[in-house]
């Protein structure tokens, strides 16, 4: 065996050992999150309200708030991001203006979430007087979500073959009709996958929310379906602590004796939900693209 071959063999072993160490680390981390957490998850834990001073509290309100906030955010951000992506991919000309818009989106994506949270606190909570509310939280998460969502939607649109557009135009369709009837349906799997993945991301966001959606939750009535009623669970103007914020809050200033058990349970729920979002995104993308192939 030559020297080079010997080095090659030693290096390969070292690399594989390092990679194995990472695998061990990953298993440890996932184990540390899931094992203590899953044992704490029960029907009672998922469906009862949190306690302020006593043990035995659940996470129902926080879990609901997290999902509701994701829905509100997607309601605002998906149309906006989709519109922006359509413009960028179908209409925008190659000039300095388009370039600067792209740059703006890139800058937005690089802003730390705490900075966006503080901006939301200043503008939505204080200046607009929304107070700590679901709406303020949803607006901030929209800002956070827009760059990624715009990018994934644009990628999805750009992957639709140009021949399909030309075929539509050749049949005498207007450009907008081509976009609406041909390009959008073809790009739908990609857009949906991106939206679900982004939902997973905002589901776990906390830093942007502690000064916008607030760190407390009020008692709400889950039978009251009128979103304008102050005690309704759908009221977007109420403060709402999400699951991720709850974990943070419990571990920085929590007063309940079983804070570590509740937070590890909540963390496991959080991670499992995000796993579901990821799997869901894959599944839906897969299903729709299969159906479109037929």
């Amino acid at each position, binding site marked *: 065996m030559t020297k080079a071959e010997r080095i090659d063999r030693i290096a390969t072993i070292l690399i594989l050992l390092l990679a194995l160490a990472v695998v061990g680390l990953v298993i440890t981390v996932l184990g540390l999150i899931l094992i203590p957490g899953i044992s704490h998850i029960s029907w009672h834990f998922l469906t009862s309200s949190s306690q302020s001073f006593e043990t035995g509290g659940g996470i129902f309100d926080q879990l609901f708030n997290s999902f509701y906030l994701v829905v509100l955010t997607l309601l605002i951000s998906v149309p906006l991001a989709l519109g922006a992506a359509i413009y960028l991919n179908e209409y925008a000309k190659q000039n300095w203006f388009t370039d600067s818009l792209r740059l703006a989106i890139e800058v937005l994506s690089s802003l730390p979430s705490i900075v966006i949270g503080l901006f939301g606190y200043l503008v939505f909570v204080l200046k607009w007087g929304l107070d700590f509310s679901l709406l303020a939280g949803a607006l901030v998460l929209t800002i956070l979500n827009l760059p990624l969502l715009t990018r994934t939607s644009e990628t999805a649109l750009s992957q639709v073959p140009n021949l399909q557009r030309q075929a539509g135009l050749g049949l005498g369709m*207007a450009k907008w009709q081509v976009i609406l009837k041909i390009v959008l349906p073809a790009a739908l799997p990609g857009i949906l996958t991106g939206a679900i993945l982004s939902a997973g991301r905002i589901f776990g*966001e906390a830093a942007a929310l*502690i000064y916008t959606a607030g760190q407390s939750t009020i008692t709400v009535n889950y039978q009251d379906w009128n979103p304008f009623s102050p005690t309704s669970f759908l009221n977007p103007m109420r403060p709402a602590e999400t699951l991720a914020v709850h974990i943070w809050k419990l571990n920085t200033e929590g007063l309940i004796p079983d804070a570590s058990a509740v937070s590890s349970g909540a963390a496991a729920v959080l991670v499992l939900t995000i796993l579901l979002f990821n799997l869901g995104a894959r599944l839906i993308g897969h299903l729709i693209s299969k159906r479109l192939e037929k």
Partner: protein
Amino acid sequence: MKNWEKYLMGPSKERTQERVGRGITGLSILMIGLLVGIILLFLVGKGSQLFLKDGVSFQEFIFKTVWAPGNEVYGAASMIITSLLVTMVAGLIALPFALAVGVAVTEILPPITKKIIQPIIELLVGIPSVVYGLIGLTVVVPIVRQLVGGTGFGIIAASVVLFLMIMPTITSMIIDAFQAVDQDQRRASAGLGATRWQTITRIVIPAAKGGILTALIFGMARAFGEALAVQMVIGNAAIMPSIQGSAATITSVLTTGMGNTILGTPANDALWSLALILLGMSLVFNLLMHFVTRKEA
């Protein structure tokens, strides 16, 4: 105009639709652009209050190490240094591990490995930062306490948590960078009699250099801007960092301080100046990434 004239001479239904569609989509992108402008404007405006209105000099803010808002002393140097330190340490520990996984997955192990680890990396990237903070609090801090002494809270725990948090991101980007290297280059190298290790170190890594650097900067930018995970484990004492003791980063001070100060007071303005520095740094990271990609192209 009569009705038939409208049909013949007026714009068609399609043309109106076209205008509306183009208008709506153009409006959405304009709104996003405007939003970014407003965010930057607000943060710069609010962040410069400390220097313009409260009479603190910028140099003092950047270079002084004493942070005592109670005594109207605003020196952010200790936080800036701590932020840079934990970010660098986290990035530099993560890099060799990420490179090793990248090499193992793309160059050594069979292609099926990539299919297996892709969803795992995806999941790890998606784990919220508070969960990493929670692991830090329940596992890392006690271990650091055992090994180094002190309370366990501090820059070591923060670096470890950030390392865990950014490694999946860096790894996934490095794998992409390795895969982007043309297969022909590897074959050519092998054809010249190079061993796999020689091909990796002399062909693949140099070719993927830009991608590796971008991955590292991207990961470090994320670490620099991370607030809660760090705030949970660093101890939050705005003093110069030490091995054993508590410290504070820009983000952790922002997290704890914003709720305890009154808007418009110098103590609050100082926090907004910290936010401005954070913004400035994330722009610098962005610029660095641009520079790397442009140099590659």
